[in-house]
């Protein structure tokens, strides 16, 4: 069997044993395992490191336990504005997007930017337009709008508006 390694993260913060609700603990671990499985399958099939990191991140973007994709936190104005980047160590080709609102998997949009090769970082409405032109899966903005994240926004705004304790990503 050929050698490969995959490492993932789902965000760092104030999670403490016994304080993080058990359901969140179990859900987070299950999400991590699903992401490792997806990325590992790509590598096992002889796929590139690039394929593997995209596959793993896509799984976590679809998982509401993590602050990315469908699970993203809210901005002050009550929107979900998503950022992502990807980089290939072979050529140091890179792609990144910021403040997109309608692409289901932002990491795949970042990869499209990298593969297009003309730019490295696209943002906002222009990045949303690029995503549509490249035929990526589109969703309505409220696909990302989860009640728990809205509650967190309300809590943070009530407390002065800045999550200095990194309580919510």
């Amino acid at each position: 069997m050929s050698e490969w390694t995959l490492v993932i993260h789902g965000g760092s913060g104030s999670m403490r044993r016994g304080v993080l609700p058990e359901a969140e603990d179990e859900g987070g671990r299950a999400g991590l395992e699903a992401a490792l499985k997806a990325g590992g399958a790509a590598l096992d099939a002889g796929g590139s490191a690039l394929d593997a990191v995209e596959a793993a991140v896509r799984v976590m973007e679809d998982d509401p336990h993590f602050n990315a994709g469908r699970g993203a936190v809210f901005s002050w104005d009550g929107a979900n504005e998503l950022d992502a980047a990807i980089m290939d160590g072979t050529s140091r080709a890179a792609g990144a997007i910021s403040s997109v609102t309608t692409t289901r998997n932002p990491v795949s949009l970042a990869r499209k930017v990298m593969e297009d090769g003309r730019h490295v970082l696209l943002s906002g409405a222009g990045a949303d337009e690029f995503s549509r032109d490249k035929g990526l899966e589109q969703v309505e903005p409220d696909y990302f709008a989860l009640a728990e994240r809205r509650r967190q926004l309300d809590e943070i705004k009530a407390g002065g508006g800045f999550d200095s304790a990194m309580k919510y990503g």
Partner: protein
Amino acid sequence: TVGAVAVDAQGHVAAATSTGGLTAKRWGRIGDSPLIGAGTYADDRACATSCTGSGEIFIRAVAAHEIAALVRFGKLGPVDAAGSVIAEIGAMGGKGGVITVGPDGTGGWAFNTPGMYRGILRSGEAPRVAIYDDE
């Protein structure tokens, strides 16, 4: 924020990061995740890194590229380099973590918060996931 780094059977590395950013962010605020070199960086000559945490400080520390530079020029292993940069970020008042992997398969994480959702899988081995800093 979520991220992944990998080295494949050919010894090539890659990194990816994705995030919703900061709760209650204003004015079009963008953190380190989409900034190549700050939150995401990959270079076969060094390592691949994805970051999560106080974006403003990871940007000012150019964290992901700094780890690659420490590997390339400082001859540190990726995880030692990551620890060094997280210590520097802590000294700058920042909190967060990184994951990293080198072309030879050495890899892991460093973080200075009570927890980080993290996992590692190597060919032929069982996956390992963790959340708290004492795991």
